[in-house]
């Protein structure tokens, strides 16, 4: 049945109408997010605002992972490392009295880029399961490094106060932080869309489709994949900077393999390779976890099976479910 549907798709070169339909979902997502605070105003505003801020931050992190998994066929099981790098850049610098968000962001991006370059250069020499395992190992390496940082809270983590912008504590306002996260998410989404459509992105997608064919026409996959790995790591570090500000706290748990696994899950749940699916996945993941954990202490026993069902029955994730057909 699917075969037939696919064939019809193939026979008709994409009409304009379907392009509009493709744009409809991302536009709707960002419209909802933009208006969210106004709606929240009538309810338990602080709580919902904080929850949605966290959702957008995880969406941002997951989107950068989608660039790797969905576009570049690099299943990284250590992506939370970059979340941790971003968060600890804020935590460590602010504990030394450096509150400026631009310095913190600059440090986060620089360290993330270096970490991605070093670990990516090694990881990308492997493929398949080995790539998954080695990225996991690098992630855990960073996890243990952070737990050993006694000066910065070690296992327990570190409380911090929010970053300053040009010396002003504007991020103190939850609403401002919400819109900063929103702007970051929108900016990254547009940037990722551009990358995916660009020459570079097309090479990356080609490598995912058939790496040997790409080599046979002259592309060396390694260089393109390593570049994507660095870009994705840097984007995720931005999410880390935001996460530290949102929770006013950093801890090694941000870097743990469970967190990396959650990110993979969010991407698959939302729909691989769609970018905006990462936001849907993050929303479903955080809201469901929040809702279920309010119901019962054993919420994990309900959460797990739901995830399995979605992965099994909603191939293409929430993004394709909401779009109707695929």
């Amino acid at each position, binding site marked *: 049945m699917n075969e037939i549907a696919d*064939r019809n798709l193939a026979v008709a070169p*994409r009409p304009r109408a379907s392009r509009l339909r493709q744009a409809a979902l991302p536009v709707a997502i960002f419209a909802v997010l933009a208006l969210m605070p106004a709606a929240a105003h009538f309810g338990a505003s602080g709580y919902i605002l904080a929850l949605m801020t966290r959702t957008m931050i995880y969406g941002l992190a997951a989107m950068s992972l989608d660039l790797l998994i969905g576009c570049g066929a690099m299943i990284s099981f250590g992506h939370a490392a970059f979340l941790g790098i971003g968060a600890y850049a804020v935590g460590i610098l602010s504990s030394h009295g450096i509150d400026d968000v631009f310095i913190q962001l600059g440090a986060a991006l620089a360290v993330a880029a270096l970490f991605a370059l070093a670990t990516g250069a090694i990881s990308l020499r492997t493929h398949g399961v080995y790539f998954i395992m080695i990225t996991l190992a690098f992630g855990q390496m960073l996890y243990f490094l952070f737990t050993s940082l006694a000066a910065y809270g070690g296992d327990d983590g570190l409380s911090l106060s929010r970053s300053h912008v040009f010396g002003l504590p504007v991020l103190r306002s939850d609403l401002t932080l919400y819109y900063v996260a929103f702007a970051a998410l929108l900016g990254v989404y547009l940037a990722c869309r551009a990358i995916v459509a660009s*020459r570079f992105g*097309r090479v990356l*997608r080609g490598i995912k489709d058939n790496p040997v*064919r790409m*080599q*046979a026409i002259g592309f060396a996959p390694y260089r393109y994949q390593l570049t994507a790995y660095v870009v994705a790591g840097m984007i995720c570090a931005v999410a880390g900077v935001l996460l530290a500000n949102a929770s006013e706290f950093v801890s090694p748990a941000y870097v743990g393999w469970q967190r990396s696994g959650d990110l993979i899950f969010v991407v698959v749940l939302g729909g691989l390779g769609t970018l905006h699916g990462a936001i849907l996945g993050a929303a479903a993941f955080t809201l469901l976890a929040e809702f279920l954990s309010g119901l019962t202490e054993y919420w994990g026993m309900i959460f797990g099976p739901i995830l399995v069902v979605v992965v099994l029955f909603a191939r293409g994730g929430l993004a394709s479910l909401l779009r109707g057909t695929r």
Partner: protein
Amino acid sequence: MTGDALTAPVLRLTDLRKSYGALRVTDGVSLAIGPRELHAIIGPNGAGKTTLVHQISGLAASDSGRIEFYGEDITALPMDARARAGLVRSFQIVSILPGFSALENVALAVQARSGSSFRFTGDAAAEPALNDVAMTLLARFGLASRAGFTAGLLSHGEKRQLELAIAMAAAPKLLLLDEPLAGTSHEESSRVIATLKELKREVPIILVEHDMEAVFALADRVSVLVYGRIIASGTPDEVRRDPEVRSAYLGDEAAEAMT
């Protein structure tokens, strides 16, 4: 251009070897391909033809020996570097980008040799400079009406033609074709043979092929590979008459069909 460039071999293999465990799959192959030549390599199943193609294209490393391409030693280069140098191959089992349109399959090969691909903005699928060349090639291989179709859903014969279009888009200075007729219907294969007749006027070709009719219709020279060794090499007539070839490979029936 010097006289030398007109006659010097474009590809020279010297004592190429490769083993898989105890199995010597390529056992001392030496070969020179001229600049205007279509050189066919024939041999029974398992003779090591595909392995040789892998070694020449750089998909498989050689244990020993030397590969020179237009006078340059390329033995240590990876496949993508050899492709950029103009050593372009096709695959016995069709290899395309199944999720991309036919047009994008060809446009990517054009992109590979036109400017940097480290560009992060701009819609690559809408670059006229790439699409125009790709479209011309698709038309040439009879696929103009298939440009927007998902490549993975084309018929087998169309995929074969598409793979040739991709190869030509990569600006080959030598084409290395591994059984381009494998799995095609009779009509499809006559279409491919006609295409190859055209291509051989533009670019030197190494053609690995099973179809004797095609080989003897197309080849300027033929080499016979058996158990990783070239047991005969020459014009189609010479090879046809070679007694060793007859007994070792062609067999009485095939020999009869060829005369």
